[in-house]
């Protein structure tokens, strides 16, 4: 079998930099300036490892340089192609057109923007996305790089239609989320899990979201830096605190103050250094991702710093703050919530409706570093309301292959 590979080498670049996407040379320059590195090549290589392990006879066909060969290793067939430097969306489209006639299935590494370019190129072949972008909300992506490789290995000719959606990055950076359906691509009809299309935002359930925010705020401890991921659920925490946190950025609050708004990975590393910190993230509806989609600023480095070398938070006796100091009752007379117990370091938020919509599938972590994914995996008490928890499993996306 012949498997094509196209890599969008700048995909994912804007994520750690807090730029919410990587479209456009200006944004890419800015991302590099903020210390970000692209991760698409690495993720394409991971997909090919899984492909070759499952199907040693597969022939990988790609283009020279960072758009393919750099990730594919020595044993691949090259189709002549010269991209501009740095490569652009036009190059992605041209590479797809150049490769498609020579392959049974085409893997592309990128995000929703890359998927649109693939769609525009009209490949005329089944394709499958290796998730590597900042926004991966389209249904045409496998759940992880390894799942993409495995799906290609198992491809036996049957296809299904999967959606390509994208957000307008300008609007997204301005805080307006407006996903649009661009079309559908034929993908392998595999048993392997696709990423699933993102479903509605929690903004639709304002009461439960406010209750979640209230719980988190009531459990906040002095001196701890809370790293709030993007989304309507975490935004409600800012609202509860009366702080101008951002819808799509990563913000840091501590002791009732906003100490970092819309920060990059580099800024975040500095902010979580030294003291105790906690990452507070929400679940992407429909997909179940908690890390590695839209919140790449909370990178493996950042998570390691937050999670490791940290003792599990032991529940303090009720009515006593940290160090045994008595806590004040909250302003509205509700009892102060105890600090969250459990693993500590990572708090996951979701309405029960969102969890129910997963149909029993686990939550997913895809930080890009398998060790960190392992570190956060297992049962976590998801905050689903005020004094409400649902123990739910997080698994590394790389281990979640099948439907």
């Amino acid at each position: 079998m012949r498997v094509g590979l196209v890599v969008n080498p700048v995909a994912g670049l804007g994520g750690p930099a807090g730029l919410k996407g990587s479209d456009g040379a200006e944004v890419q320059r800015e991302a590099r300036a903020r210390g970000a590195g692209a991760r698409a090549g690495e993720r394409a290589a991971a997909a090919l490892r899984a492909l070759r392990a499952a199907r040693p006879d597969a022939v990988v066909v790609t283009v020279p340089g960072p758009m393919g060969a750099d990730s594919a290793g020595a044993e691949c067939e090259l189709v002549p192609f010269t991209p501009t430097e740095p490569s652009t969306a036009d190059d992605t489209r041209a590479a797809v057109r150049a490769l498609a006639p020579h392959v049974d299935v085409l893997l592309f590494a990128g995000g929703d923007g890359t998927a649109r370019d693939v769609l525009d190129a009209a490949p005329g072949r089944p394709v499958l996305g290796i998730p590597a972008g900042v926004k991966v909300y389209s249904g045409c992506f496998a759940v992880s790089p390894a799942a993409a490789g495995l799906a290609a290995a198992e491809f036996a000719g049957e296809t299904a239609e999967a959606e390509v959606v994208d957000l307008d990055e300008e609007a997204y950076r301005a805080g307006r989320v407006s996903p649009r359906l661009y079309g559908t691509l034929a993908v392998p009809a595999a048993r392997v899990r696709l990423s699933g299309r993102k479903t509605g935002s929690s903004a639709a359930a304002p009461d439960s979201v406010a209750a979640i925010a209230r719980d988190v705020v009531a459990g906040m401890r002095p001196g701890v830096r809370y790293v709030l991921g993007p989304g309507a659920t975490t935004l409600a925490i800012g609202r509860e605190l009366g702080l101008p946190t951002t819808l799509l950025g990563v913000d840091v609050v501590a002791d009732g103050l906003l100490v970092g708004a819309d920060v990059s990975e580099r800024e975040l590393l500095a902010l979580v250094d030294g003291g105790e910190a906690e990452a507070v993230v929400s679940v992407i509806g429909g997909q179940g991702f908690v890390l590695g989609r839209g919140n790449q600023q909370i990178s493996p480095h950042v998570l390691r710093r937050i999670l490791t070398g940290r003792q599990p938070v032991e529940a303090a006796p009720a009515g006593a703050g940290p160090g045994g100091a008595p806590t004040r009752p909250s302003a509205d007379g509700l009892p102060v919530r105890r600090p969250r117990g459990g693993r500590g370091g990572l708090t996951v938020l979701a309405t029960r409706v969102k969890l129910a919509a997963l149909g029993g599938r686990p939550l997913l972590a895809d930080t890009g570093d398998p060790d960190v994914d392992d570190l956060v995996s297992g049962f976590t008490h998801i905050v689903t309301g005020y004094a409400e928890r649902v123990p739910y499993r997080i698994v590394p996306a790389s281990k979640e292959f099948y439907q």
Partner: protein
Amino acid sequence: MSATAEPFAELPVAPKPALRRFHQARWDEPIIFELSSPGQRGIGVPAADVPAVELPDAVRRKTPPALPEMAQLHVLRHYVRLSQENLGVDVNIAVGQGTCTMKYSPKVNDTFVRDPRIAELHPAQPEDTVQGVLEVYWRLEQMLKEISGMARVSLQPNSGSAAIYANIAMIRAYHAHNGEAEQRDQVITTMFSHPSNAACAKTAGFEVITLMPDANGHPDIEALRAAVGPRTAALLITNPEDTGIYNPRIAEFVELVHEAGGLACYDQANANGILGITRAADAGFDLCHFNLHKTFSTPHMCGGPAGGASGVSERLAPFLPGPTVERDGDRYFLDADRPLSVGKIRPYLGVTPNVVRAYAWIMTLGAEGLRQVAETAVLNNNYLMHKVLQIPGASVQWDKRRLEQVRYSWRELSEETGVHSEEIGVRAADFGVHYWTSHHPYLVPEPFTLEPTESYSKADLDEYAAVLAHVADEARRDPQFVKNAPYNQTIHKIDPTPLDDPKQWAPTWRAYVRKHLS
């Protein structure tokens, strides 16, 4: 007609169609307060021939109560009309209110309740004048002890939820007695347990941990393992759950909670699938509750006062609500001297009419009869499931045996036609039946929950399934027609949003006037 023909040899009317040509009454009836007409009276009360009593000012009304003023006929007519605009157990095949166990309430039991010796009792009568009703309470407790295997049962709670609240109050008191009230601040329940379990725990100040189902539809035991610990106060669980699936590892669930020092509390509101077959105590539970208005046939009474019963093991008996009804030889008495008791869950004894009905119902059936109730209910349910699953587009989510009820799904039908489960239920009402979907959030997509109990005949179940099959077929042929239903009802569509909006909801006329008319 010829002179020789037998006049009634042929049917005088056409045979009935397969589906009932039902039409609901529509009286356009106002609220009773709107019917009030100043000066009208139901009874002309004669002037009192005893001197008026001087009441202290503090207890005197400044204004007379705003009661409707009406003649007897108008009161009667009003309520008969409302009863006609209804779909209760006495008129429809009430298998659609799954989890509510809508069984027949034998009318003969109402005669005991109407008997002046019950009907005219005053709750504050001296003990020696109410020995009979105390004996009924005492005997019903003995029966429920036997049925549950528990050491004591309180009949004070007003409803299932009140019984769950009584149980959580006892759980809290038990841990407080052991000096662990502060430490044990979490209650574990499951997604398919009745939501009153979570609600009561929350009301009592606990953090609520809800277990999701695993791939088999059972509550995830791995999640339980992750959830139990020194903070665990109790597990509050229904079994079989809303899905009708019996949790085969229930004893293990109880054990895990016990190992962590927590208590296990069984919501047996609806014990219709296990009556006489298994008992809460046999699985190691410390507490349980029954709804008299489900398992034991009494009327639901519009959500209350219906009747709940809280059962406890020996170690929790001191915490029971009180006063308790005790026997000393031939004499029955109330014991209020119970220092560890959680106190009163409601004033006085309990919902006496339903206690009497439940007692009468159990007495007519006996132990074998109770077991037969469960066996018949389970058989009826599996027959109905067989019929429903033959309807194209209907399915169940987990391929597991069901006991007394099933949560079904119209997922396929809905994907094909765009018609939702709620809409199918509303259209079914045009044929004189209805159904309920599910608690929220919907884990089973496009859900509907059916529970046939032991009361319904095979012909009833066939008719019910035929209505669903017909509506599903209509949805395929003309989805919009189904979406526009109902056509034969008292009112057309209702907007449910006010039910979720505190600014709009109005449980009383006074609240309605305040929120909507002023």
